[in-house]
């Protein structure tokens, strides 16, 4: 699982892979073997190994909202944000309730549009890629969350976008 994780001003690419006896976690260019066990709800014991050392950390985490986790360690506490670009299907908001599903899809992080894969008016199926957004040197395909018609595309290839900028409308 490839993630973008942000703590305060710091932003890192983090890769989490399950293996036989725990996880392999890569933060930037540093790779750790992590044995993570839950002691009680929210409280984990992390045994973290890198090439030289092993350390045990007791960490409390609590999901605060979509993609935001409160993390409390012996060295401090605060929110850490996790974005999950590759597993991402589409951003949903602004939809009418029931009946016809209309949706405007916004950029969920700042980046640059590298490709627009369909034309306005195209009929698309759930999971079909619509736009490719590059952020953190990763290309992320923004896909349709449901079958429908792309009624409008707000961006062009090469265009930088800020978080919250509209990308396309799906009906």
């Amino acid at each position: 699982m490839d993630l973008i994780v942000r703590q305060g001003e710091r932003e890192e690419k983090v890769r989490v892979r399950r293996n036989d006896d725990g996880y392999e976690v890569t933060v930037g260019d540093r790779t750790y073997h992590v044995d993570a066990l839950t002691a009680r709800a929210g409280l984990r014991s992390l045994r973290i190994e890198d090439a030289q050392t092993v350390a045990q950390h007791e960490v409390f985490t609590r999901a605060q909202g979509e993609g935001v986790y409160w993390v409390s360690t012996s060295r401090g506490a605060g929110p850490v944000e996790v974005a999950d670009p590759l597993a991402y299907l589409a951003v949903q908001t602004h939809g009418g309730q029931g009946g016809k599903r209309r949706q405007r899809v916004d950029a969920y992080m700042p980046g640059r549009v590298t490709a627009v894969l369909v034309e306005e008016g195209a009929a698309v199926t759930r999971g079909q890629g619509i736009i490719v957004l590059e952020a953190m040197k990763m290309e992320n395909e923004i896909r349709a969350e449901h079958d429908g018609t792309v009624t409008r595309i707000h961006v062009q290839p090469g265009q930088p976008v800020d978080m919250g900028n509209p990308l396309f409308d799906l009906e």
Partner: protein
Amino acid sequence: MTATIPRKRIRKVLIANRGEIAVRILRGLREMGIRGAVIYSEPDRLGLPVLLADEAYPIGPAPSRESYLRGEAIVELAVAIGADAIHPGYGFLSERAGFARLCRDAGLTFIGPSPEAIDAMGSKVESRRLMMAAGVPVVPGGKDPLPDLDDAAAAAEAIGYPVMLKAAAGGGGKGMRMIPSPAELASSYRAARSEAAASFGDDSVYLEKYIVEPRHVEIQVMGDLHGKVVSLGERECSLQRRHQKVVEEAPSSVVGPELRRRMGEAAVKAAAAVGYSNAGTCEFLLDRDGNFYFLEMNTRLQVEHPVTELVTGIDLVQTQIRVAEGEPLGPELDGVQPRGHAVEVRLYAEDPWNRFAPSPGRIEMLRWPDGPGVRVDAGVYEGSEVSIHYDPMLAKLIVWAADRERALDRLDRALSELRVEGIRTTAPLFKALLADPDFRSGNLDIGMLDRKLAAGDLQPPVEEGREAARDDLPLIAAALAHHDLANRQATAGPAAPASRRSRWGAAGRRAATGGGGSWT
């Protein structure tokens, strides 16, 4: 006072308080086989004191004035439930002579001094006069206005420089001037008068001795109903934030046996001058040369009483009760000397890195420290709601060790075991203090903490040495939490995330409003 005091056994006590001190008193009572009854306001129905009490009675809605401060209702309740005595704790009604009088008139034992002693110590002017008459040192100077420069010069000479000029009608630091030597007197005198006139419409000023970077050192006293008063040694409470004590310890690192004896004698004289009985505390300012000056007497049990208990082995609450029953103080309380060193920190539901903003809410997880030399006096438990209605103190964490250095190491260890999740606490401030060289070396004065906080000198300590993933730990923890959550959602079917759009923005806003945590 008559020569024969009838012994009156106390069998049931009503505790007119809440929180950790109500719990502390209940513990003392239970060990003595005395029934403990508590009162509670509406939001305190499930408070720790209620859960631990033998009896519990509602006293009103959340505001203190409609609950814990209803003296007449509390006395009526105590009579109705057949209590023999009322323990007022600290705060609330504990220093109201009128309440002590109501108890006496209703035939109840007030576990504290007489209303007359409370009254005498309650007035600053009156207590200062009494203390001077009793030969207890007070801050030199006087409230007499100084109409011209010659009067001021004569007064300053008599007191001894440095002196402080204060506006008679003043307050809040306005019109106050420190004068280090006679050369500065004339200009400061004129400036202080005109400032006082401009600020208060009254240009009269008076002089007091200026005490350079004093320490707050207080003496615990205990008096019985037979006229005996003893000193149980000092506590140093110089670490204060806006005049509120934050860390207390016993003994003081600058008080030796000789100074302890002199301060103890002064405190006993002060208490005896007002016919004091039960537990009380004389607060002094101590200057660098070992001179001390009486500030005031607190006519009740103090928040920080446990540090005295740990270095003397005396249970102050139980001694209060025995004294209130009429038992005389025994010879074991004469000439008590401290053994080892105790330190207390007050754990508040406040964010020390965000201007001490209150942090009410539900305690999601709570683990108190434990093990050798650790005591926790708490008023909350895991799952408690910390409400906005009362003092935000959650608990007092107290440690004891053979000497100060080891006590501080133990405090550090205890803080590393402490876990409070769901609300912010002042625990990180204590971690920062433990890394402060002045605090570590005992180089304290009453302005030190405010100065260091204002200067931003207190920062969470950066640990030495290298360990795996030290800086990456929060990122790893969040990524794993996210990974687990995503896997759970994948097995449970697709979730419909709400308002994805705003998540970075929401976190940014939280950071901007000070909710950004305290990463080091």
